[in-house]
């Protein structure tokens, strides 16, 4: 026995929309390439970025004041072949990331592995919390 319920259809429609919008590709155009994540752990700041197909030689990382600038070029690996699909992005890019505090210029480590760039930064001495003794 089945009773028609109008809301079942509405829910199906909602699922249809959800499925459509969850079928997104890795690159969502409203964000600037490359995508980054900033994490904090005590006095350390860890920046992770997705960089598929980019070689370390084609990448520049700079620190200016409290901004980290990642720039470089993703070189096209197209061959002279009949392409059925071209979805990947190639070209030059530059992204500036404002850091939440000033960082020490001495302890910077950057690794690039399997298309993930990881930058380890440390807070500069003057942005570390300091306890003030009351006399």
């Amino acid at each position, binding site marked *: 026995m089945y009773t028609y319920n109008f809301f079942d259809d509405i829910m199906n429609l909602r699922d249809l929309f959800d499925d459509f919008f969850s079928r997104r590709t890795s690159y969502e155009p409203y964000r600037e390439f490359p995508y980054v994540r900033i994490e904090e752990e005590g006095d350390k700041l860890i920046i992770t970025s997705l*960089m598929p197909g980019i070689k370390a030689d084609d990448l520049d990382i700079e620190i200016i004041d409290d901004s980290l600038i990642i720039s470089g070029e993703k070189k096209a690996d197209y061959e002279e072949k009949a392409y059925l699909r071209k979805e990947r992005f190639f070209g030059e890019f530059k992204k500036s990331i404002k850091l939440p505090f000033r960082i020490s210029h001495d302890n910077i480590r950057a690794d690039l592995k399997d298309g993930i760039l990881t930058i380890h930064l440390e807070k500069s001495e003057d942005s570390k919390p300091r306890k003030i003794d009351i006399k």
Partner: protein
Amino acid sequence: MATDKSLISESKSSRRVYVPVADIYETEDLYCLKLEMPGATKDSIDITVENNELLIEGKSVLEDNAGRQIRYSEFSNMDYKRSFRIGNDIDSNKVEAKFEDGVLTLLLYKHEAVKPKKITINTAN
């Protein structure tokens, strides 16, 4: 070749399923696919060919971030999944895969029988 099958995100966890972007070209002997899967590793990628379907699945293995506080993020931990319908011109025993710098390259060789063959015309004297 290269018709996407409908993909519905199955993950209910905080990991998100992404459809990796792909470049595909064809030559006389093979199809070459390049898919971007940053953070995945050789061991976290599964490639299966079954019933005319090529399925590529992978997990990104990012640095352990327990104890870290996320200040800002433009991506979530990723699972990758994409499938392609392939024709019967592909020899499923002859598939080569390479993973480098977050890019997966797949070479799918065609069966000998479907490769173009040049026929020479004998001239009758």
